[in-house]
């Protein structure tokens, strides 16, 4: 420890000390073992002080790269021409360029002209944004909103909103668990771990069908102790792209109600999955219509392309307006020691886009375009693989899955082969981001997938 080093050093210092006189201003260094001694004048006395160069954080190990965000780093480092980044879920144009929505540019110019100030938002965020986001999620005429039963707090995109929800659970539902799908977005586990909320998994992905293990899902939700929080993806499940059908959603709602569980929705792709904002919110609205109390985390990273602005919301729909008020106050109390108040820029963009009818219509059209491009790419990929692969394997899951991602069914070794041999960057769980795929690259990708699937085990 630092202090031990100090005492040893101090004992050895005396021979040098005697050469310093009282008022001498002497700045010198002497190396002694691992630390450096400095002599400094201090208010007319000699103070022999030892510089503490031994860090408090000496034993800190190097953390592993993030499994998702680390993929892009590795991609950037690759110098090969044919490289393809299907890692992180960020939308790309057909030219594989990032895309700033036109409505966003227009909103930003409006904001620039108006010369808005940069004052602190309230802890709960921009009021206009909170209103817009709840209405977007539930529908402006939803009874829950009319009855003021919705507590909405602006959050740091999906991650930050989920973290607020997790912190609420840890503080007010001690001992309660969260049930998360197997598999789920990698960061869900980190969020609940760091928030100290225990979790376990419900079956979700069926590798045999590359589809939903519906029976397993229902069974596991039923088996969980009463009052468990069940984390559900509102639409475009990440990483599989496999969503329950409307009929399956009804059954899921049934069993959650029977067991007195609390549904916790992660809605990161509203509008992006089917192209329709309302359609993609159907699952959430179903639960709310049944009178259930629901937590919902939202993100505008993908559907408004506002990734780096970190804009989202945590919504708690509860049984009374009085309850919503109390819950909102406690969400604020959790947010204050995390970041005090949320960033304003993204919130203003959303509020402007959603609040200006012309811009809102334009947004809907741009979203249909983005979702449409993904659907086209899915079709092209499916066509390419089906025509090239003579093994008879059923690749139709590519078409059945929805949203930005596709779970290819490739295992870790096969995924590694995709990267090492074909320079196709993806996550080790076999997930590819179709948003990073162009029609032009579908043939190449088809070859890579076929090779990895058949020739690598």
């Amino acid at each position, binding site marked *: 420890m630092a202090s031990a080093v100090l005492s040893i050093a101090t004992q050895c210092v005396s021979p040098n000390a005697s050469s310093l006189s009282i008022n001498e201003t002497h700045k010198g260094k002497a190396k002694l073992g691992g630390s450096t001694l400095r002599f400094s004048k201090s208010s007319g006395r000699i103070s022999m002080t030892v510089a503490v160069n031994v860090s408090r954080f000496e034993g800190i190990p190097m953390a592993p790269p993030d499994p998702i965000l680390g993929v892009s780093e590795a991609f950037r480092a690759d110098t090969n021409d044919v490289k393809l980044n299907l890692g992180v879920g960020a939308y790309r144009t057909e030219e594989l360029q990032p895309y700033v929505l036109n409505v966003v540019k227009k909103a930003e110019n409006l904001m620039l002209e108006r010369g808005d100030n940069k004052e602190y938002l309230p802890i709960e965020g921009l009021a206009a944004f909170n209103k817009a986001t709840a209405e977007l999620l539930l529908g402006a005429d939803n009874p829950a909103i009319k009855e003021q039963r919705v507590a909405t707090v602006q959050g740091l995109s999906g991650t930050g909103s989920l973290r607020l929800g997790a912190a609420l659970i840890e503080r007010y539902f001690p001992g309660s668990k969260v049930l998360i799908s197997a598999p789920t977005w990698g*960061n869900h586990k980190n969020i609940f771990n760091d928030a100290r909320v225990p979790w376990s998994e419900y079956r979700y992905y069926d590798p045999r069908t590359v589809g939903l293990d519906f029976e397993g899902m229902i069974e596991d939700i039923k088996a969980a102790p009463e009052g468990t929080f069940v984390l559900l993806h509102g639409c475009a499940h990440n990483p599989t792209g496999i969503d329950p059908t409307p009929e399956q959603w009804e059954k899921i709602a049934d069993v959650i109600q029977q067991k007195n569980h609390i549904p916790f929705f992660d809605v990161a792709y509203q509008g992006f999955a089917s192209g329709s904002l309302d359609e993609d919110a159907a699952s959430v609205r179903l639960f709310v219509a049944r009178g259930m109390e629901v937590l919902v985390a939202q993100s505008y990273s993908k559907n408004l392309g506002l990734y780096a*602005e970190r804009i989202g919301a945590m919504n708690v729909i509860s*049984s009374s307006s009085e309850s919503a008020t109390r819950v909102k106050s406690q969400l604020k109390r959790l947010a204050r020691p995390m970041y005090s108040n949320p960033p304003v820029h993204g919130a203003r963009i959303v509020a402007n886009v959603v609040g200006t009818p012309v811009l809102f219509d334009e947004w809907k059209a741009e979203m249909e375009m983005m979702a449409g491009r993904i659907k086209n790419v899915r079709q092209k990929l499916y066509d390419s693989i089906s025509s090239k692969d003579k093994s008879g394997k059923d690749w139709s899951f590519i078409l059945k899955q929805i949203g930005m991602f596709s779970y290819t069914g490739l295992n870790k070794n096969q995924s590694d082969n995709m990267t090492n041999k074909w320079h196709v960057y993806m996550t080790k769980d076999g997930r590819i981001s179709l948003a990073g795929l162009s029609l032009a690259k579908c043939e190449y990708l088809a070859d890579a997938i076929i090779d990895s699937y058949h020739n690598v085990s």
Partner: protein
Amino acid sequence: MAVRNSLSGQLFRRSSVVAGARFMSSWFRSIEPAPKDPILGVTEAFLADQSPNKVNVGVGAYRDDNGKPVVLECVREAEKRIAGSQFMEYLPIGGSIKMVEESLKLAYGENSEFIKDKRIGAVQALSGTGACRLFAAFQHRFHPNSQIYIPVPTWANHHNIWRDAGVPMKTFRYYHPETRGLDFSGLMEDIKNAPDGSFFLLHACAHNPTGVDPSEEQWREISSLIKVKGHFPFFDMAYQGFASGDPERDAKAIRIFLEDGHLIGLAQSYAKNMGLYGQRVGCLSVLCEDEKQAVAVKSQLQLLARPMYSNPPVHGALIVSTVLGDPELKNLWLKEVKVMADRIIGMRATLRENLEKLGSPLPWQHITNQIGMFCYSGLTPEQVDRMTSEFHIYMTRNGRISMAGLNTGNVGYVANAIHEVTKSA
């Protein structure tokens, strides 16, 4: 006790019919309303007040002489340059590299050897709050048995931050009510009595809420003693440039510690000095023994940030790196930050003059001795309540006045109010 226990323990189910849907008792029944945030709650109350004379000297946000928020010219210029043209792709978890580089130069010195030797593990953070929270979480993870020593008083949110990060707090003496100045001997004693190797939270300049800073000489003694004790110094620097008008001067305490060989931690904020309050942009840095350690520390900070917010917001970071990275814009910024600091210093003098002219029986030198945005007036909570109820002047109950809320138009009114509530004290 979890709400669900009370529900399943009894068969009783209370339900209410609302628009045809039946509800069980809410899951959130046991959630109590949170108390209003003592600082941000003041502004809420101020906004609700209808009086034409109302004055907000609560929250620390700069106002010009007309009481209006200010967006700096250098910031507007930077925004023009970045509007619409930048992609909004995710920043790395550690944030904007350019912004972090510029922040380190500002704090550690343009030609700092530590920057050259890459010994600083640093990440972009969600303003000062986020930087402190990230450090507190880091401290908890790697020194789980440690505590944080905080000055009495300190910014209210420091308590919340380390508490929610699971790090217990201890205090050290700081403010001396009798002199409205620094309790230097108490401070030194408490540093000495703390077990070797404790973590200490220090305000680099413009102490919040008191405005009382150690002198340069006192900082040198504090540094020496902390070194002898092997304590870890964590600096919260929210007002660099804003205190004296000169960023180099405001970083003096940090530079003293660096010269003395401390391995410091530092939270920086651009909320006040660049007026970027709502953008939430700041920086957390930890000075390490060598580059390898700095890389490891940064990687662990990222591991903590990922489940909090994944990656930090880009807009404010772009503004900061554009301003600091362009010599012309940086010069403009230096001028503008001096204008803000000078206006505050001027208001301090005026407030003190007014109180003395009114014939106040109490001493008021502390108003001009103290520095930065805040003044610890010495008003009691009861006197503060009178300021609000009788004069519609809003401030926090610890007697802290945000000098930025004063201007030539209201300083006389405020002086008069202070005099009224204190003259019989």
